C-alpha cells in the first residue's frame, strides 16, 4: 500500500501533500484537546507497535502479500485524531527505510492516515451502533472498520491514479484489481485488529478509546497525574 515515487505525477503528489498537511494540522489540534494524559504515552506505543506489525507481511494470494495498515487499530485505541499522527510518524520513519517514496509521503499519509484512519473510524462508530454495547461489540466493530479501511485506502489510491497516474491505463481494471486484492488484505487487517483490540480490552479496558463508554465511571480526569 506504500506508494513509491513515480506512480503518481508531481502536481497530484504535491496536492496530496497539501491535503495531508492540512489534515495533520487539524488532527494535531483535535488530538491536543482530546487525548488525555493516560493515553499520551499509549499513543507513542501504538506508533511503535504499528511499525513492527507493518513489517509482518502475510500471504494473501499467489505471489502477493499484505500487511497490517493499523489506522483503525490506532483509532480505536487512542482516538482517530491521535491515530492520524501515529500513522504519519510510522510513514515518516518507513521513508527512511526506503519504504514509500519521499515525494509520495503526502499521498501515503492521506491514504493510510486520513482516509483509512478517519474513514475507518466513522465505519467503527456506525458499526458500534449496530452491535450490542459490550466488549464483543467493540471488537466486532473494530474488525469490520479495519477491513473496510484497507479497501477505502485502496480506492483512494485509484482516485489519485485517475488524477495523476503516470502510465495510461484502464482505470476500471486498476480499480477492480486494487479492490480485489485489498479485500483479501482487509480480512487479515480485520483479524489482527480484532485480536489486538480484544487483548488490550482484556488487560486494560480503560486504555481503549473506542470503548470509553463501557467504563463504569464516566471518564473525567483533569490533568492531575503528570
Amino acid at each position, binding site marked *: 500500500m506504500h506508494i513509491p*515515487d513515480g506512480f503518481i505525477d508531481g502536481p497530484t503528489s504535491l496536492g496530496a501533500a497539501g491535503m495531508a498537511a492540512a489534515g495533520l494540522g487539524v488532527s494535531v489540534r483535535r488530538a491536543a484537546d482530546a487525548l488525555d494524559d493516560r493515553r499520551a*504515552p499509549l499513543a507513542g*506505543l501504538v506508533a511503535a507497535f504499528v511499525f513492527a506489525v507493518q513489517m509482518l507481511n502475510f500471504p494473501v494470494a499467489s505471489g502477493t502479500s499484505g500487511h497490517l495498515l493499523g489506522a483503525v487499530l490506532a483509532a480505536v485505541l487512542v482516538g482517530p485524531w491521535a491515530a492520524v499522527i501515529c500513522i504519519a510518524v510510522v510513514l515518516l520513519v518507513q521513508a527512511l527505510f526506503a519504504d514509500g517514496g519521499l515525494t509520495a509521503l503526502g499521498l501515503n499519509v492521506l491514504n493510510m492516515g486520513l482516509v483509512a484512519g478517519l474513514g475507518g473510524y466513522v465505519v467503527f462508530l456506525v458499526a458500534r451502533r449496530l452491535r450490542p454495547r459490550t466488549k464483543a461489540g467493540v471488537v466486532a466493530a473494530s474488525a469490520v472498520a479495519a477491513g473496510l479501511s484497507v479497501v477505502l485506502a485502496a480506492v483512494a489510491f485509484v482516485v489519485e491514479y485517475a488524477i495523476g497516474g503516470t502510465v495510461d491505463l484502464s482505470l476500471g481494471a486498476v480499480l477492480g484489481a486494487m479492490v480485489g486484492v485489498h479485500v483479501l488484505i482487509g480480512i487479515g487487517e480485520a483479524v489482527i485488529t480484532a485480536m489486538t483490540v480484544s487483548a488490550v480490552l482484556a488487560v486494560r479496558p480503560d486504555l481503549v478509546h473506542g470503548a470509553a463508554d463501557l467504563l463504569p465511571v464516566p471518564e473525567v480526569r483533569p490533568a492531575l497525574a503528570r
Partner: protein
Amino acid sequence: MKANTKLFVVAGLLLALALALFVSPFADSDPDGLGKVAEEQGFSGAEQEHDLGDGPVADYEVDGVDDDRMSTGVAGVIGVLVTFGLGMGAFALLRTLRRAPEDEPTADARAG
C-alpha cells in the same frame, strides 16, 4: 503516568521489539497488494529509485550486517525504537500545546 500504565507501555514496547526482531525476518517477501497490481496492470516500471535507496537501512537491511534475517530483524528494532521515540516526543509536544495558557488556565493551576 500511573505505574501500571508505564508497565503496559514497557510490555507493549517489548512485544513490538520481539515481533520486529524475531518474526519480521520470516515475513512473506512477495510484493504487497499495490506492488502486485502495479506489476499486473503494467505500471510498476514507473517506480523511481528511492532517494534513500542507498541509505544505511534501506529496504530494512542494515549496512554491515551480513546475515539477511539478522539484518531485517536489526532494522526492525531500529525502526521500532525510532518510531517509539518520535511518537513519544510528538505526543509530549502535543500535551504542551493543550496546556497553552489561553486554553485552560484552571487545568494548569490544578496540575501545578
